[in-house]
């Protein structure tokens, strides 16, 4: 775990040494973790459809699919946000606290007028970005370890969320729920596409390239004129922004607010990133993988339900699923690299 198994230098060297690699082989080597996360998603999808068919003697309906997407939405956004930070070789444990704040603010302030809903959504997204900014400044400029900074800010954000909403309550305008997470129109799917699209843009900007570069080798990135600190701060800002968006979507799928409901997303967003094949050593992976991971985790919950697993045992199977999926990834990675050698 201390060496990068597929160091770019080594990969390049191998390509120059041996016969010319085909474009496909290059692609599959570069994207092996992403392909694997898609395979995991496909596996859970097949399991879900099979069990659904066995239990209800029909295939999942449009309603099932849209509600599945809606359930996964908060995690999708939290996981994409987490991806930016993990790519810089960091980690954001405050994601859950940020979603708590977002959820509480939305439940307290949203009024059923378009102006209120839009204005407050923007304000909440900005609050998320500000929370991320604090994390980023402490990590990049005060040079504190990300895991410690975000641990501390998690506590702070949870406290702030509780200040906003002391006990579960508040209300969510039905129009808000309808617009973002309708079960009749594929609005949820559009939002997933939006998250994926933003990632696609990010990946192609100077900013995105810089984040990948600094995640791979910070010293080399700085030597090449990349403003390492500033980019790190922006990565955390994005994480905060996406976490706040996740919190808004969580609010939309519920009837009210709960200042502690978002906390669980700290660990599940990390799990989704892991399943998505993003390396904790930084600079390697794709948020598309994290989106697949988020859906796989949501599907597993449904699979366990249809498989009549005692609910108390659910964490057991989720934990096992996480370990086995990553284990498969490292075995597959080893095999793939063995073959190209």
């Amino acid at each position, binding site marked *: *775990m*201390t*060496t990068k198994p597929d160091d770019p230098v080594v990969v390049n060297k191998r390509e120059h040494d041996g016969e010319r690699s085909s474009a496909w082989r290059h692609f599959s080597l570069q994207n092996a973790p992403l392909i694997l996360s898609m395979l995991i998603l496909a596996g859970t999808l097949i399991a879900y459809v099979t069990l659904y068919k066995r239990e209800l003697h029909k295939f999942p309906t449009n309603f099932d699919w849209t509600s599945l997407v809606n359930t996964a939405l908060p995690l999708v956004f939290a996981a994409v946000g987490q991806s930016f930070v993990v790519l810089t*070789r960091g*980690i954001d444990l405050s994601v859950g606290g940020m979603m708590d704040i977002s959820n509480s603010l939305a439940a307290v302030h949203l009024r059923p007028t378009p102006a209120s809903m839009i204005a407050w959504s923007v304000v909440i997204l900005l609050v998320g970005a500000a929370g991320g900014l604090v994390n980023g400044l*402490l990590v990049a400029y*005060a*040079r*504190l*370890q990300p*895991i*410690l*900074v975000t*641990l*501390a*800010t*998690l*506590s*702070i954000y*949870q*406290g*702030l*969320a*509780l*200040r906003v909403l*002391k006990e579960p309550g508040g209300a969510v305008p039905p129009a808000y729920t309808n617009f973002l997470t309708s079960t009749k129109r594929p609005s949820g799917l559009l939002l997933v596409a939006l998250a994926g699209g933003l990632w696609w843009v990010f990946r192609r900007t100077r900013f995105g390239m810089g984040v990948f570069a600094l995640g791979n080798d*910070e*010293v080399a990135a*700085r030597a090449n004129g990349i403003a390492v600190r500033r980019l790190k701060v922006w990565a955390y800002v994005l994480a905060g922004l996406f976490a706040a968006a996740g919190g808004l979507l969580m609010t939309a799928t519920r009837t009210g607010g709960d200042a502690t409901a978002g906390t669980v997303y700290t*660990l599940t967003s*990390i*799990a989704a990133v*892991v399943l998505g094949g993003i390396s*904790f050593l930084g600079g390697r992976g794709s948020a598309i993988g994290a989106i697949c991971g988020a859906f796989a985790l949501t599907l597993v919950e449904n699979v366990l339900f249809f498989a009549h697993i*005692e609910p*108390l*045992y*659910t*964490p*057991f*199977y*989720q*934990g*096992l699923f*996480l*370990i086995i999926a*990553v*284990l498969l990834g*490292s075995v597959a990675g080893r095999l793939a690299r063995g073959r190209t050698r």
Partner: protein
Amino acid sequence: MTIDTATPAAPHVVRRLTEDRRRILFAYVAMIGVFIVGGLLNSAFVSGQSIRANLIIASFVGIVAAGQAFVILIGGIDLSVPWVINGAAIMLVSTSLGRNDRALFAVAATLGFGLFIGFVNGVGIAYLSVPAVVMTLGMNGVMEGLTLGRSKGLTCGSCASYAPSSVRALYDTRLLGIPLGLFVWLLIAIAIAFVLSATTFGRRIYAVGNSPRVSFLAGVSVKPLTVVLYMLSGMFAALCGILLVAYGGQPALGMGDPFLFQSIAAVVIGGVSILGGRGHYVGVLAGAVTLVALVSVLQGRQWLHESDRSIVYGVTIIVILLLYGRSREES
């Protein structure tokens, strides 16, 4: 989580030693600082009774932090402690059924259970190269599910048992006014300090923490060492579970949850680098006491709402980290 370029100033051995000692000193200064502030806010805070209560809670954090320190010293992390603690606590009461004649067996079985979980973690991390964060996060879920499922959400018949009186004697009996449980912590602390400072095993831990590859080339069996350290972490978490039921009498669901972040925070406040290879358990002792004292100072403030406590707690940790937890300027 591990970065093997963490020692840019490696040749200056003397300077490194003094910096590590400086960090430990800071941890003790922070500890005394919290007690002074606490005493100024409320003089009862520095009474013998209050200090004793704080030290007992600190011993729980400190013992989990001992295992956490071992794995953090080699650049790892153990996120599985919450449900190992909880599982161990339930296991102790349900195997002993509150009977003294089964107490020894129950304690041994529970510690063995902790060692086994740590063994699985270690094998996954060292031999199957699963990242430590993933392995122990997954294991925490596995243990949560098993604990909830096997105990039927703590509604099983044997779960209602109390800890045997011989185990509870750890906190019911006092020697020189100090509960026996605190002596357990003292003995553990002395043993760990000795292991880290005066044995080849301890030296190897630092070597691996600084550079696994170089240690491997120097003949250290890195993988077995990693497994042993995760086993220790599992065992200390299980021991914490035992001590918690010895203190409180009965297990509860979620009783291990606060210990995850607190153990990591205690290790880091104690001057151990989260990147591995530097720091000492002597500092972690102070880290655990500082953290617990801080929480109890905050809890003593009646006008402070729970949410404000959590904010102050986070801000204080950041301030402590800003004072001395900063990593060196790179290149």
